[in-house]
């Protein structure tokens, strides 16, 4: 697979507001890449820079190997699906979808053929003569997608396209979008703040936070090996503790937390006496009625919450912190108020470098110098 979009060292500054910082992303052909983050993290700005509605303050963006900063939005071979749909209110659905082809001066008969074909693909046949105001939200969404896809762009940019739909329709559209993308083999760059949506649809996810990419990896990697504390908490539910690495042997670190020591799998980048964060997903947590070697946590069962297929067990540690432990429904459970010993398979937990530790270290070095 070739590279289709290369973003190199891009920064975007509005006045004193540094929205995107030193961004580097390479998107492969036919890939479904999601920019995920909360509002204001710079994901939409990044998308708008690729589309050409914003200019990078510094850095270059290449599409198919060619720098595009000097190209106007209408000269770029990328198309956008807008969050507000941005359908032309005074044009029929047919004319909305035909707009891009009309601009390219495609012959009328071909326009008609392609528009009708596209409308069939997005299941809108028969709606040609309607106006956008006569459609439901989901239908408008399909028009917006059809209007962009009909131009056969190399890259399709989607800015929270499903944000305005209700949950059920959103789930359905997610699958449909994914199907279209595979069928047409077009590169999708997709912006969303919905982590579930990102996990469902993407080939790769770039988690953005304060204008920086915290992690760019496959959904599985992002979920199972979050690179930063932010990623770990933003995606899925997790139990998270800060502590200090006290020993490392055979790829397993012993980390001392406020409530006692635990064991976590780790790589070579960690060193002894480093401050680090431990993240364990609720479904990876175990507990026992007797102490487990290497784990010094002791907790009291506080409550059970029933959420369909699983049961969430809330336990509290001596310092008041709470842990969530997931159990399949139907298993035998200790009574509320009873004492348990939480533990996990060291490989199932993730050790994350603690940024604040780096700051302390830098401060120390300055002091020494």
């Amino acid at each position, binding site marked *: 697979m070739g590279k289709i979009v290369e973003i190199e060292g891009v920064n975007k500054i509005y006045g004193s507001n540094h929205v995107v910082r030193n961004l580097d992303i390479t998107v492969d052909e036919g890939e479904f890449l999601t920019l995920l983050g909360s509002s204001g993290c710079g994901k939409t700005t990044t998308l708008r820079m690729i589309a050409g509605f914003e*200019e990078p303050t510094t850095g270059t963006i290449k599409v198919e190997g060619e720098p595009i900063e*000097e190209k106007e939005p209408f000269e770029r071979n990328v198309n956008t699906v807008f969050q507000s749909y941005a359908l032309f209110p005074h044009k029929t659905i047919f004319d909305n979808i035909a707009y891009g082809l009309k601009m390219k001066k495609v012959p009328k008969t071909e326009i008609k053929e392609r528009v009708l074909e596209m409308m069939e693909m997005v299941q809108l046949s028969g709606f040609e003569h309607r106006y956008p105001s006569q459609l439901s939200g989901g239908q408008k969404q399909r028009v917006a997608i059809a209007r962009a896809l009909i131009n056969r762009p190399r890259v399709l940019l989607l800015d929270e396209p499903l944000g305005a739909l209700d949950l059920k329709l959103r789930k359905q559209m997610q699958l449909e979008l994914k199907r279209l993308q595979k069928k047409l083999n077009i590169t999708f760059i997709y912006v969303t703040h919905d982590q579930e949506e990102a996990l469902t649809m993407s080939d790769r996810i770039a988690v953005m936070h304060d204008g920086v990419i915290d992690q760019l990896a496959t959904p599985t990697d992002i979920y199972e090996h979050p690179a930063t504390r932010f990623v770990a908490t933003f995606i899925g539910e997790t139990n998270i503790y800060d502590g200090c690495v006290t020993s490392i042997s055979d790829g397993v670190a012993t980390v001392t937390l406020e409530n006692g020591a635990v064991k976590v799998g780790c790589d070579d980048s960690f060193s002894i006496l480093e401050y680090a964060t431990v993240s364990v997903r609720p479904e990876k947590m175990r507990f026992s009625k007797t102490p487990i070697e290497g784990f010094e946590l002791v907790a009291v069962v506080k409550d059970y919450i029933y959420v369909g297929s699983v049961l969430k067990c809330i336990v509290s540690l001596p310092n008041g912190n709470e842990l969530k432990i997931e159990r399949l429904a139907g298993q035998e459970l200790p009574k509320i108020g009873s004492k348990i010993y939480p533990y996990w398979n060291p490989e199932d937990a993730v050790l994350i470098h603690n940024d604040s530790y780096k700051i302390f270290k830098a401060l120390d070095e300055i002091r020494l110098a």
Partner: protein
Amino acid sequence: MEKKKSKHEFRGNTLPALVTVGPVTLLLLGLVLAPLIFVLVMSFCSTDEFYNVVYRFTAENYSKLVSPDYMKIYGQSLLIAFLTTVVCILLGYPFSYIIARTKNKKKKLLYMLVIIPFWTNSLIRIYGWRTFLGNSGWLNSLLLKLQIVSEPVDFLYKTGTTVLGMVYCLIPFMILPLYTAIEKLDGSLLEASGDLGARPIRTLFEIIIPLTSSGIFSGSIMVFIPCLGYFFVSNILGGGNTDMIGNLIERQFKSANNWPLGAALSIILILVTLILVKAYQKAGGDMDSLGL
């Protein structure tokens, strides 16, 4: 970090801003602001014996403004404008209410019927009133024929006649904002009020009027202020008995040729306008509903 200079200016907006806002700015500065400032300057000037404006500072005009004769006319102007506004509200409110609450297609027709009369020149309509009300006018002919009166009644040249003409000219400016405000009124609020035990008259004062007060305010501004300047209405229907500040200004510019005095009189009108508009804004009025 070095900023790049880009060939195209997608958001570079100096040129488009200049093209779009430039003409209107020139127009407003040249044909609105400058003339008004010039009026202010002129109000401090005087005239020589040939009625030419002499540009030397004097406050003489302003001292003339407080003469008892003028004071009487100011009082009369305010009275006529006030009566006009009140009558416009009393007639316009129920009228707008009925039209705005009409349910079917008739509504649009009723609305258009309010506007159509105002496509005829206003002078000629006022003259129509004079034809109707004059001593040998239609109303008197009718009254004489029916032997209700034995002599023609003097309808013209009275304060009431001028108020009638003013109401006639200005009532659309009351009806339109009221119509807009009443149309926005959510019908379920009236039902809720009734449901909670309010009689219709209570609902009117507790719900309907407070919620449409914006329309009453902007309508009043749009009636009261122009009324002060509609000199032709009191010329045609008042025949010199109901002079208003507008007539005074007109005379200074058209016959007495004392422009500086006329300018000073205009400054009074400007001040009245400013005070009323400020009060309107203080009361929470929206400037945009003062349009048409």
